[in-house]
């Protein structure tokens, strides 16, 4: 029987830059997503430090108003679209196929296309600093401000950049849906899927149904700015509120897109580190689905000060309170999972517990926003900034950090250092609370968000200083993390296949896994199937280690393994590398650049023509290329 610990000795052709550019392997694409997301995390973090430095004391002079507007807008856009979404995509790409026992995603080339499109679009958004200035109308891009800033191409960059990033994410989501619904290993029924895979399903559906709505809004914005349409032109009875609706019909599902994968990761880690199955698997899954549905019905809670009228406001307020219920269910399930478990307080576990506690705080301030009269006081104040950083940093980012510590061994075959990891965790947790807890008070004391400076004597100085100090502490935490990665990559402890005594299929294969993931396709009998291969249950219901299986070796049930049970690794045809996805995505981004500069005449049309040629080349070549080229 084949064992997946076979030495990985990639042929020369499998290394080097070209092999990464043309790769269609979901694991490599996952790694590229992770690296890109981390680089943008540093960029977005640098912008955050600029903001906090400006606001450290009254009448800050580091940034002009004009610069401040660009920096905070780009900070938001970067963190949402170029950090959290792609880091989620990184984990999903790498681990969804492994967790469902597949050899790759359904559409490997579309997968590559989605990555390159995301990466080029995010870079393209940053070229705005060189050509006319970066977007400066906030990540929400409210009309009519966004349509009136006509001297610059800034909000055109916003419109086109967000549109392109959305298309990339759409392509990725369709791929995950097809993969998860059609490529699961034999026996892996839907209700045996790991929760992380389930959350990927929900996220993908949220994305495919919400991105097109903001897509329409972004086109309308572009048309209003460049072609004289009147969608948001109040002087012609266009309705700027339309933008707010379209934005938030996307925007609220989007916040769940950012958090659900992190919830999935935490739901993977807690059972492993508590040595207990997830408490109420079905509840966790169904509350995730419920969040997905309800997430489409609460968007107007972002518009309580827009004058929608009492009926709509009451309705949306109630719906918002409702959505806190499935969220609370999950929290109780997580607590129940750790309850009575023999906890291993490893770094991934610490980050997971940090996630739960910080997310609870953020969720509670969210519930206070659902009370309409209270929210009219809180809206557009620093209280909102505090809320969404508790859910997005305290929640999402800590969750992805937990994932990084948990899965780094599978990526690299090395463990991250636990000692440095704990330093990383505590510095980050303290820095985070120091930064964002005071912002609750600032907000309630009336400090508005999105202002580039404030006067002395308003009672805001101390809290702001505290917040700035905290932000530098977070930065120290990030440096510690980088140090940990570098150190552990070089001479970290070898991980082996299954360092955490894991429960899901990714731990059955080698670290890092072979190109084809599994020598033999696993057959699944339980949720947490791998655990049941390692442990039996005795008469008293206690888990006992089964003697014949040494932890980590891939064991395939040969009785039901089917005809291909003895497949030789050489018989497995993996998709061939292709450079067409990167060409096609470059073409699409050049088309986007043409749209941004469309009002500048020749430049815009030149770029459009070039983009059309390049993308046609990419797509036509792609369509005519066989998926697996004959290699032997």
């Amino acid at each position, binding site marked *: 029987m084949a064992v997946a610990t076979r030495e990985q000795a990639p042929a020369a052709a499998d290394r080097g830059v070209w092999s990464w550019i043309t790769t269609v392997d979901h694991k490599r694409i996952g790694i590229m997503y992770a690296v890109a997301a981390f680089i943008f995390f540093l960029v977005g973090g640098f912008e955050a430090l600029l903001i906090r430095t400006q606001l450290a004391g009254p009448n800050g002079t580091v940034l002009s108003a004009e610069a401040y507007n660009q920096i905070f807008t780009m900070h938001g856009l970067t963190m949402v679209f170029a950090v959290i979404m792609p880091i989620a995509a990184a984990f999903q790409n790498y681990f969804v196929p492994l967790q469902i026992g597949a050899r790759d995603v359904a559409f490997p080339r579309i997968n590559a296309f989605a990555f390159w499109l995301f990466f080029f679009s995010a870079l393209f958004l940053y070229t705005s600093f060189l050509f006319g200035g970066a977007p400066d109308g906030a990540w929400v891009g409210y009309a009519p401000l966004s349509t009136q800033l006509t001297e610059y191409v800034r909000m055109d960059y916003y419109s086109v950049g967000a549109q392109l990033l959305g298309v990339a994410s759409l392509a990725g989501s369709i791929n995950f849906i*097809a993969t998860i619904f059609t490529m699961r290993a034999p026996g892996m029924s839907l209700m045996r899927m790991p929760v992380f895979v389930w959350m990927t399903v929900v996220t993908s559906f949220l994305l495919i149904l919400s991105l097109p709505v903001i897509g329409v809004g972004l086109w309308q914005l572009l048309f209003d700015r460049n072609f004289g349409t*009147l969608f948001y032109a109040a002087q012609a009875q266009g309705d700027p509120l339309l933008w707010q609706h379209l934005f938030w019909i996307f925007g609220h599902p989007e916040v769940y897109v950012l958090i659900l994968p992190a919830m999935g990761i935490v739901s993977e880690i807690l059972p492993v580190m508590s040595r207990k199955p997830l408490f109420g698997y079905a509840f966790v899954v169904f509350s995730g689905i419920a969040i997905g549905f309800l997430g489409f019905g609460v968007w107007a809670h972002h518009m309580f000060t827009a004058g929608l009228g009492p009926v709509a406001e009451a309705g949306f307020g109630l719906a918002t309170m409702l959505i806190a219920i499935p969220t609370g269910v999950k929290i109780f399930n997580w607590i129940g999972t750790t309850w009575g478990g023999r906890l291993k307080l490893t770094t991934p576990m610490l980050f997971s517990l940090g996630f739960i506690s910080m997310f609870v705080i953020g969720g509670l301030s969210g519930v206070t926003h659902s009370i309409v009269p209270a929210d009219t006081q809180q809206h557009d104040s620093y209280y909102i900034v505090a809320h969404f950083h508790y859910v997005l940093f305290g929640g999402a980012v800590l969750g992805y950090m937990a994932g990084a510590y948990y899965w780094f061994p599978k990526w690299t075959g090395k463990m991250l250092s636990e000692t440095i990891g704990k330093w990383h965790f505590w510095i980050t947790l303290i820095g985070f609370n120091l930064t964002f807890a005071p912002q609750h008070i600032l907000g309630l004391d009336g400090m508005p968000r999105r202002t580039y400076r404030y006067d002395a004597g308003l009672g805001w100085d101390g809290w702001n200083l505290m917040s700035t100090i905290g932000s530098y502490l977070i930065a120290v935490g990030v440096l510690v993390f980088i140090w940990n990665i570098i150190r552990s990559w070089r001479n970290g402890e070898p991980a082996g296949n299954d360092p955490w005594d894991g429960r899901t299929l990714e731990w059955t294969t080698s670290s890092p896994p072979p190109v084809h993931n599994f020598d033999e396709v696993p057959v699944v009998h339980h949720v947490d199937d791998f655990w049941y291969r390692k442990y039996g249950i005795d008469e008293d219901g206690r888990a006992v280690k089964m003697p014949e299986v040494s932890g980590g070796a891939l064991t395939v049930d040969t009785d039901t393994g089917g005809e291909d049970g003895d497949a030789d690794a050489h018989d497995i*045809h993996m998709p061939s590398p292709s450079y067409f996805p990167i060409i096609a995505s470059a073409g699409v981004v050049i088309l986007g650049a043409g749209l941004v500069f469309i009002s500048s005449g020749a430049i815009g049309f030149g770029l459009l023509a070039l983009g059309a040629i390049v993308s046609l080349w990419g797509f036509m070549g792609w369509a005519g290329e066989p998926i697996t080229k004959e290699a032997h």
Partner: protein
Amino acid sequence: MVSEGAVVDHDFEDTGNPIHRVRKTAMWAFLGSEAFFFGAMISTFLLYRNTIGDGPGAEIFNIPFTSASSFVLLMSSLTMVLADNSFQKGDQRQGRVWLIGTALLGTTFLAGQIFEFTEFVHEGLTISTSPFGSSFYMLTGFHGLHVAVGVLLLSMLVFFSLRGRYSPDGGMNVELVALYWHFVDIVWIVIFTVVYLLQI
């Protein structure tokens, strides 16, 4: 790769070539997304249907003309079914005829749309006349763009088939293009009803 490398759900193991199921799932997901795209534009149009400013409103629609071009588009769904059918039976020769027919009907529809747009502009309705004009042209324009992409896909199918490079497992696939084409037709039925016929 997928057909060999991937393992498909137990329950579906014997329902023909699994790659078709994989792709169809993806296509349905894509069309679901498209439905929301058009849904948002239709909502915008409904919001602005009476916001005509000083410009013309719905009275400039030429219902008999647009009914005729809608009929043309509907017929193209029929030819698309026939094309799909021929390809399924392995008769690519016959299938190509139907594909070309579908593409021609689609092109006729597009010509009709261009004619109609020119007429409206002459009567004073442009994208900047009123929010009504903006949303009308955006909605019908994006739909026209989808028809144009469909015509392009149909032509590529004919091209690949002529060069002998068409295979149901290849990158281009009649069944998927057919799904797309029917979807675009159905969207038009909704648009025609909501924009042209419903006069409230």
